[in-house]
């Protein structure tokens, strides 16, 4: 068995894919990180407390993991779902009853989404309690707040897509607030004075109509599947980049540059 593996590791194909083995030297360990596009997000060396779950709770990492899970399960769901009012609910029924592993994929998407809202909140709570938003990480906290808002918006737009009673009424309640927006909503303070009507105010723009209907479904679908994930990805890139540039994970000694 070992013979075969050794032989395999000597082949040109293997060596072209895997540059490093598990050799237990610091040089090799460093190369494992910097030569791997996914792992080179990390520094080569890190304070021991940063690997301590009691300090970080692992909530930022879990949030990112859940985002990846949501992207993969979300793409799979898109194969079975048409964002038109006459098909959407039927497609959901089909997915839940006739598609192999359909319910599992949908459940994973739903529960990962709920879990992600929770882990984002807890990540923020942890970052606050360790004072990690303080200099030099002030701006990364701001990026984090934007990511929290994007997470809520992603979850909210996804809530409409099953197109069942739960979906449209939850979204109706949520978007009804927009009609009361000061200046920009037709029921908000000074909205009428500025010429806001039910068919031209900010809620109308959100819904694509005067009530939650087929245009809303399409709008939320595009926002949920393309627009918001794109924006969130960009902010995540900035968020992770800034962690490195601001001196790695916060700690009592780690407030300078790496």
């Amino acid at each position, binding site marked *: 068995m070992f013979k075969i593996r050794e032989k395999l590791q000597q082949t040109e194909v293997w060596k072209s894919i895997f540059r490093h083995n598990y050799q237990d030297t610091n040089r090799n360990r460093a190369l494992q990180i910097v030569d791997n596009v996914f792992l080179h997000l990390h520094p080569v060396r890190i304070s021991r407390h940063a690997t301590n779950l009691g300090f970080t709770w692992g909530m930022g990492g879990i949030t990112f993991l859940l985002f990846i899970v949501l992207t993969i399960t979300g793409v799979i769901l898109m194969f079975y779902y048409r964002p038109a009012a006459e098909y959407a609910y039927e497609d959901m029924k089909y997915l839940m009853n006739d598609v192999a592993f359909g319910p599992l994929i949908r*459940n994973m998407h739903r529960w990962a989404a709920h879990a992600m809202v929770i882990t984002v909140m807890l990540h923020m709570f942890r970052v606050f309690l360790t004072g990690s938003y303080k200099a030099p990480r002030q701006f990364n906290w701001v990026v984090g707040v934007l990511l929290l808002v994007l997470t809520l918006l992603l979850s909210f737009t996804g809530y409409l897509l099953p197109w069942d009673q739960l979906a449209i009424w939850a979204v109706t309640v949520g978007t009804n*607030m927009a009609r009361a927006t000061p200046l920009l909503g037709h029921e908000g303070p000074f909205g009428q004075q500025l010429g806001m009507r039910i068919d031209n105010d900010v809620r109308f723009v959100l819904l694509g109509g005067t009530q939650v209907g087929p245009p809303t479904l399409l709008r939320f679908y595009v926002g949920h599947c393309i627009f918001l994930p794109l924006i969130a990805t960009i902010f995540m890139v900035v968020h992770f980049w800034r962690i490195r540039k601001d001196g790695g994970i916060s700690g009592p000694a780690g407030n300078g540059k790496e």
Partner: protein
Amino acid sequence: MRNLWVLISKPDNIPIVGLLFLVILYTWYSLSKALKNDRQGFLDESTLSEKIQVWPNLVRVEFLGTLFVMVVLVFWSFLIDAPLEEPANPTLTPNPSKAPWYFLGLQEMLVYFDPWIAGVVLPTFIILGLMAIPYIDINEKGNGYYTFKERSWSILIFCFGFIVLWVSLIVLGTFWRGPGWYFFFPWEPWDTHRVVALTNIDLSEFFGVHTRSADYSLNPAAFIFGAVLVLGYYSLIPLYWILKKDKSGLLKKLGPIRYNVTAFLFLTMMSLPIKMVLRIGFNIKYVWVTPWFNI
């Protein structure tokens, strides 16, 4: 009691039970870490500050964490189906109609404020206020470790906002609000025909000044009464500045801009519990009625 189980076991409510459990656990855990650091005179984090290789130390933690989360998620997804109710029907309004659980704190705020405040202005200030935190908290201590003593005020205020005003209002909106958004105990069956006779009055009427005359026109006295209260509430900001400016080192360090932003955000946050007490305790609907908006 059956109703309690129905509420808790609703697939979409399970995350809230999880959230509540995790928030309590983490608050207790991190505060005990902070108090331990404060008491022992050195930081637990400092004893772990030596540099170690990311491969394998951090990669291993991430791998095991990923395995753990995926196992939990797959089991959760095998055991509990995501809800799928009747097809969407715009002519059939369910009672109660509830927003997704993470917005139920905002929906609960609708009891206390008009939608333009509860649904638009306060959420905007929550977001802006969160973003402002690093710039208004000028305390340099407590950066990168758990401590309570060195930044007790900021921790208390944040925990009040997060735990009391955000998490517990979500729990209240989910488990204590039934048809008509009336208050029901979680174990109480939901009576959809419940009617509660509430005589809502405005704060001025509490003092005998009627908000409106017989022809429904606004009473100027009530308008002025409300204006004095609301504007007076916010004029506490400059008043405190003038009184304390020379004596308080904190105010000097903050400077006028940071002080005004901090005080404004704090008073705006505290307006919610104040209005909650007025509303629940005294059936007060509005503090200030104007022709354009009501507060």
